[in-house]
């Protein structure tokens, strides 16, 4: 099976801090892969580097067989990679509709864009109701739906989500994860990072545990939850880090 996204020996540094060290990850077409790890593990650095926001100090990132490591960040979406960043980042002063339209910046098929927008407004009546209001006035959950929909407006092959459940109540998190599963069912490959291990394990085909910038453990929800090293890997206890 050829990987859609292939990451090898990826190292990311901020000055002298190593945020990621020799990370290897493969994501195949149609999969949901999740990365879990505590605060400061390097999750955001990983997604930011794939999207081109943060430069890599070493290693390779290949997407559909093409080296994308040094692309300017506005090109990654043109290659088919969409990032929903940590903290959502709606454009708060622009309306809900304008946010959705911006999601289609790279597309020129205007009638199709309109149809896609209608589909999202049908799927989320609250967004339709508030389509002409500034997006900054939406609740956290509504903003999360909006930014995922906005990312999908580019019709990506790979959707990356950085802590989509952060700061949301349990029912809203259910909705967000339903949306993630639905998106995969429509053929979009997904890479999601979370501190919220339970959700990210349940939704994913495969999960990596990241801590201190190093992948400590990898497996499926079943193998990982049965693994005696799981908690130690997640919480970064020395025995696993060194062994």
């Amino acid at each position, binding site marked *: 099976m050829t990987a859609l996204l292939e990451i090898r020996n990826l190292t990311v540094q901020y000055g002298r801090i190593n945020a990621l060290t020799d990370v290897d990850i493969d994501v195949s077409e149609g999969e949901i892969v999740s990365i879990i790890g505590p605060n400061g593990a390097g999750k955001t650095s990983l997604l930011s580097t794939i999207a081109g*926001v943060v430069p890599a100090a070493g290693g390779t990132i290949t997407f559909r067989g093409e080296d994308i490591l040094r692309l300017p*960040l*506005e090109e990654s979406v*043109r290659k088919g990679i969409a990032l929903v960043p940590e903290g959502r*980042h709606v454009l708060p*002063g*622009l309306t809900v509709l*304008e946010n959705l339209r*911006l*999601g289609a910046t790279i597309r020129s098929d205007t009638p199709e864009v309109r149809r896609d927008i209608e589909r999202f407004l049908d799927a989320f009546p609250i967004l339709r109701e508030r389509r002409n209001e500034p997006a900054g006035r939406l609740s956290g959950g509504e903003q999360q739906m909006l930014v995922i929909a906005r990312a999908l407006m580019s019709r990506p092959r790979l959707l990356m989500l950085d802590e989509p459940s952060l700061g949301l109540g349990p029912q809203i998190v259910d909705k967000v994860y339903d949306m993630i599963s639905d998106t995969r069912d429509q053929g979009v490959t997904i890479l999601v990072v979370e501190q919220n291990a339970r959700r990210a394990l349940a939704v994913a085909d495969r999960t990596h545990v990241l801590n201190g910038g190093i992948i400590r453990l990898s497996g499926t929800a079943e193998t990982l939850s049965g693994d005696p090293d799981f908690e130690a890997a997640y919480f970064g206890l020395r025995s696993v880090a060194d062994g």
Partner: protein
Amino acid sequence: MGSAFIPIMIDAFSVGGLYALTALGIGLIFSVMRLANFAHAEFVTVPAYALFVLSDHPVVVSISAAVLVAVVLALVTERAAFRPLRGIDPATMLIASFAVSMFIQRLLVFAFDSRIKPVNPLAVLDGSVALFGAQVNLLKLTTVITCLVLLIALTVFLKYTRFGLEMRAAAEDFTMSRLLGVRANRVIATAFVLSALLAAVVAVLFSAQTGFVHPRFGLQIVIIAFVATVIGGLGNLLGAAVGGFLVGVVSTLLQALLPPDLRPFREAFVFLLVILVLLFRPQGLFPARGLKERI
């Protein structure tokens, strides 16, 4: 006041309009790249010199040339001076823009010496017309109308075109906009072109009012416009326009209405007003939303 009222208001609005356009030109660039572009002064001065150089040619030619010169100058400074500094802290960029401003000013002195040069780009507008029973200077009326039309055109551009949407998005969250595919170079170049267009119009209208140009021609208006953008709220276009307009109107009205022996202190009154505004609203009248840069 009676019949004096309308001419005074047209006068005040024409000055206010020019400051508003200048403040908008500064605000457009600031909003997308956090550059407080002091060299905007030369974006005004250089096209005014183009008017001087081409003063023997038909108005259409000299004005078109002035606009073209402003746009080319803006694109060249963006490419050569500001692009390499992109993302650096705003204070450093401000200093760099001082340097660019000084450099161009020296070039002008070198090329034309520093004495004032006569210009009269809009001689056709000498004279006055009757408006609501008052005689109104045609040039000032044209200035007011031009400013109004440009403000409306800019609003339509920003609100209803794809470019405009991209610019507003970049102003709110540059990195997020780029992640959605908005091209940084294109948005910034668009901001510089729009800024230069506004500067060229100010050059034409302002030099038509003063009747001469000199190396610090743009500076006098840009310094006031900078103050205006601070009053309006840095990084907010509506605020910049309103701030510029208010400063222009207030200073013109003070000139007209203050007792003659207080008129020389008109600017002091304007700055007093600025200090009062900033004391009560340190963020300006219309504080900018999200000035965030990173994700």
